[in-house]
């Protein structure tokens, strides 16, 4: 949804990096086959993570193929697809469709509305296949919208709704593993919501937009509180994750959950430092000899 759930390439071996790329390209291809080019632009890291996770859990037979595509016309890419690709692609469409509608509602983003309009047909198909999942997504997002309208200044309420939504999406089928899968998805949902609110806060304050952390941000220890909260919720996610009997591609999954999810956060922390460093550098240059 927001691109936090991705690998940290610096800490992942080449073989696993290529595997992840093949999953990602495979998702793109599945979206293309099912929903055309329009489906393809909705491709997200979150649902690629879900595909790697479910594939590791259920180990279905996989198809590896190679080819060129519109975004990468020169170098051949590897595509990894399996019987779980369709489900993850469908959930990808459902989440993207609602995200676009949200953007339209929140920010009156015309692009959002246009995209939601175009995705409408694809979404109706997904809804026909997974009515319960789609109903849960819709209900949670509607409730989050309500909280935003009420200017809810407790981030937990909308974070818990995001948790419920993602938890529902992660339970692919009700089997022996559904509880850890749901808990995993819930933890990730909380993490994504909080991280997004944290990252958007400066811009939201500037533009006087709703942000659930606006009140908390006034406290002197805000940064520590956020860091500890994010760690707490991702720890709930990994606690459930570590209960699952995962072997295949477990390096990729651990890389995402223990490292990749923090990449954007660290970039944000380091940005002010980098800017300061730049300032000092230019100071240095201008100083007369």
């Amino acid at each position, binding site marked *: 949804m927001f691109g936090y759930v991705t690998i*940290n390439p610096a*800490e992942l071996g080449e073989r696993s990096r290529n595997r992840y790329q093949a999953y990602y390209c495979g998702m793109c291809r599945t979206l293309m086959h099912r929903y055309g080019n329009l489906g393809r632009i909705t491709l997200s890291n979150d649902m690629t993570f879900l595909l790697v996770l479910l594939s590791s859990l259920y*180990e279905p037979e996989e198809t590896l193929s190679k080819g060129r595509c519109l975004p990468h016309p020169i170098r051949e890419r590897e595509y990894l697809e399996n019987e779980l690709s369709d489900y993850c692609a469908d959930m990808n469409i459902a989440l993207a469709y609602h995200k676009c509608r949200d953007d339209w509602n929140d920010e009156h983003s015309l692009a959002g509305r246009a995209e939601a309009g175009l995705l409408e047909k694809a979404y109706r198909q997904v809804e026909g296949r997974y009515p319960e999942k789609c109903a849960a997504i819709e209900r949670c997002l509607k409730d989050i919208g309500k909280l935003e309208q009420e200017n809810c200044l*407790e*981030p*937990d*309420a909308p*974070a*818990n709704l995001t948790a*419920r939504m993602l938890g529902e999406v992660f*339970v692919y089928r*009700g089997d*022996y593993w*559904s*509880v*850890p899968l*749901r*808990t995993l998805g819930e933890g990730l949902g*909380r993490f994504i919501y*909080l991280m997004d609110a944290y990252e958007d806060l400066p811009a939201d304050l500037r533009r006087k937009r709703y942000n659930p952390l606006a009140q*908390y941000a006034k*406290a002197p*220890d805000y940064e520590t*509180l956020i*860091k*500890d*909260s994010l*760690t*707490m*919720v*991702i*720890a*709930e996610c*990994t*606690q*459930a994750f*570590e*209960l699952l*009997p*995962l*072997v295949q591609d*477990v390096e990729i999954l*651990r*890389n995402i959950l*223990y*490292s*990749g*999810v*923090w*990449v954007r956060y*660290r970039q944000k922390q*380091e940005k002010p*430092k980098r800017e300061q*460093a730049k300032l*000092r550098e230019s100071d240095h240059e201008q100083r007369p000899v």
Partner: protein
Amino acid sequence: MNRDPYEVLGVSPNATDDEIKAAYRKLAKKYHPDLNGGSAQAEAKMKEVNEAYTLLVKNKGQGYSHSYGSGSSSGNSYGNAGGYGSYGGSGSGYGTGGYGGGNQGGYGGDFDPFGFGDFFRQAQQQQAYRGNQTTYTEYDPLLKNVEDAVLDREYERAAQLLTAIRDRRAAWYYWSARVNVGLGNRVAALNYARTAVEMAPDEPAFRELLSGLNANGQNYRRYGSSRGFTGALCDNPCLTLLIANVLCNCCCLGGRGGAYCC
């Protein structure tokens, strides 16, 4: 389950988590009902393997001991001297309720062999039943009502009672934290617990609540770095940063250091 789960999975009691998982996968491939034409024998075997796996992995727990369990896994006869509380299992004293009993989370029909439903809520409950330590409510009848509501798990009511209290000292923040744990409000719980400790740093129960809330996160960081990930945040960024800066300042002759924390 009658057989030793280590024996069922064919691993030694010293097996690592990854070894247990690999052993499980091997057996799961062998006995999966779909691959055995739905044979009843394979199905029974699969059930046994699933149970053995679940028992081992939830008790062994990859360094993720349940921080509130306080080693009370008395019902678990498979080693792990203390430290690994069971997830609502036999040792925890409230296992039967588990999850789904009136909680709005909606685990509904999910079969929950792990018995862990919601770590966060269970953590609260274990906290609540943890001995008869001071609860800071003896001299305050209003807070006493809050405590009663919390013990009855009526968190919404407890929250209303707290809102009505105007005299907000450290104990008020402590109880607000506990109520928010019960409601599943993580950020709020953490925030209140931090304030309580800030106001009364020497109160053991306040500190215990706060460190309990942070314990999972600490395990997460420790486990992440033991796996070689530096992406997760280190425990003490200030100190690391300081050392890095000192080192850089020494070797770069006062130039700016390029090293960041972690």
